[in-house]
């Protein structure tokens, strides 16, 4: 398989951060290896050549980029990615795939904070855990996720979907406190346990909880008591997300695509700000 490979040569001293903003398949496409090695990255804010830190190999003919090494110190991996495929072997730092436009980004390890922040399109697959502020907003003036799709096979940290405006997040594992805080719109699907401290300041959007049925029976601050409701859009959503869910959740939704549920327990919030966000647990 023809792909371009960047391998981190050595670990930077503790506390030092590498900013890899702009190192993405479209920008590197069709460049020579020496040209790529001369591209600038920022190390603690100081411009340095990419080649000083990474071994550059392979070919840039295709739009496939492979990154390896201990990348937990590398921030902005796949940031503003335009197209192609970016595969990260191991962990990544903060702002993974932030402001991404299109393409597919896959990471085999854990992602740091603010993964997918501001991403408008494309798909981010995180095989490990996601840190705090997954798809969250980096500042008060900018929204979080803006249209991309993020699938986390592990757990996600605090404040997942903070100020998220559009898009889809699917978390297979557990979700920590602060889920959907100030969420504007979009969909968050939780296949594992969910901390009941959620939805504070939520305006619109959907939190779909698949396996944590006790959650909706709890009194969630700012949310209406749950009621059984027929949601006509639910089968359409479930049909789409089914392929991204763990096998146990797929089975829980329905035995076959024909029997996708429309009935759900739903509560609305955050009513403290007249929000119409919804917490939905399908009745299967």
């Amino acid at each position, binding site marked *: 398989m023809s792909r371009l490979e960047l391998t981190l040569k050595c670990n930077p001293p503790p506390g030092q951060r590498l900013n890899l903003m702009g190192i993405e398949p479209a920008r590197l496409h069709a460049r020579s290896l020496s040209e790529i090695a001369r591209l600038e990255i920022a190390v603690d804010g100081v411009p340095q050549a990419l080649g000083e830190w990474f071994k550059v190999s392979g070919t840039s003919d295709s739009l496939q980029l492979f990154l390896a090494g201990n990348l937990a110190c590398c921030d902005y991996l796949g940031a503003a990615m335009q197209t192609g495929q970016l595969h990260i072997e191991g962990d990544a730092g903060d702002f993974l795939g932030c402001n991404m436009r299109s393409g597919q980004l896959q990471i085999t390890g854990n992602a740091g904070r603010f993964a997918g922040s501001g991403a408008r399109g494309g798909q981010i697959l995180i095989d490990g855990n996601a840190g705090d502020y997954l798809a969250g907003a980096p500042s008060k003036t900018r929204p979080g996720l803006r*249209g991309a799709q993020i699938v986390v096979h592990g757990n996600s940290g605090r404040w997942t979907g903070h100020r998220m405006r*559009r*898009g889809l997040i699917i978390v297979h594992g557990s979700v920590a406190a602060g889920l959907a805080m100030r969420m504007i*719109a*979009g*969909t968050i699907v939780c296949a594992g346990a969910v901390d009941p401290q959620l939805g504070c300041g939520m305006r*619109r959007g*959907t939190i779909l909880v698949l396996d944590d049925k006790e959650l909706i029976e709890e009194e969630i601050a700012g949310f209406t008591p749950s009621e059984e*409701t*027929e*949601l*006509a*859009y639910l*089968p*359409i*959503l479930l*049909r*789409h997300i089914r392929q991204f869910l763990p096998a146990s959740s797929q089975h829980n939704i329905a035995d076959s*695509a*024909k*029997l*996708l549920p*429309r009935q759900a327990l739903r509560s609305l919030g955050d009513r403290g700000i007249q929000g*119409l966000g919804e917490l939905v647990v399908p009745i299967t």
Partner: protein
Amino acid sequence: MPESNTEPKMIEGIEILDAFAEAFPMTATRVIITGADEYWARQAAESMTGFATSVIACGCEAGIESRLGTEQTPDGRPGYAVLLFAMNGKELEKQLTRRVGQCVLTCPSSSVFAGMQGDKKIALGDHVKYFGDGYQQSKVIDGRRYWRVPVMDGEFVCEDKTSRQAAIGGGNFLVLSESLRGALDACRAAMEAMESVPRVIMPFPGGVARSGSKVGSKYKSLVASTNDAFCPTLRNVTNTLLPKGVTAALEVVIDGLNEADVAEAMKVGVIAACSVGKRSGLRAITAGNYGGKLGPYHFHLHKILP
């Protein structure tokens, strides 16, 4: 209008006159309507395609294209595919949104989705959403936006946009019979066979028009008037095109998404009509045109039939 002096073509003993149907360019869209069960899906589809026989006064021509199984609809419920035809995109969008608002939104348990994907987008739920009075919510799933409008039976789900494409309206054939019963039976047989042809609709009542029209009228306000050449009661006072002994003529009108589909529907319909046989009174099949001056699509019966 039959073309003269050529060898007669026969199917099941019925003469196929050497005539052609003249059809026009239109624009069309498809929507998928679903319901809690087939009964309610059909109610919504029939309501939406009501009063849509001719663009002359209805604004659009519409009909049910096919019944859809649960595996063919976006929400896994029974549904119907509906085709709407109009003369331009603006009118099509106007008719579509009005009909969705008045006929589908109002029908219990219904939902409506885009039935075709293309570059030319038109509004489907983009206006209807305001019925939600601020409580409507959108949900983008797999790149497609759906509106969820709260209604008294739950929520009405309506896709934001559908697409339109170039289409053809006015394909037709005429059934000429010695009796009205014979003509009706032939048309029924034709319609039953044509229901299986995809991408076409027959917009008139039962697929059939008895009031075939000619362009213009002695009255200035009318753009079309009765086709006197095919009216049996005017046989002796006008330039009739009815063969001797024919007392009833009925016209099957076909709109389709492309030429091949219209031709296929005409072929299937004519063969089925002829299958009722001479004993029912059926005498001949012809087609309606305006001398070839009005529409660019000409479907010659002798070319499309085996």
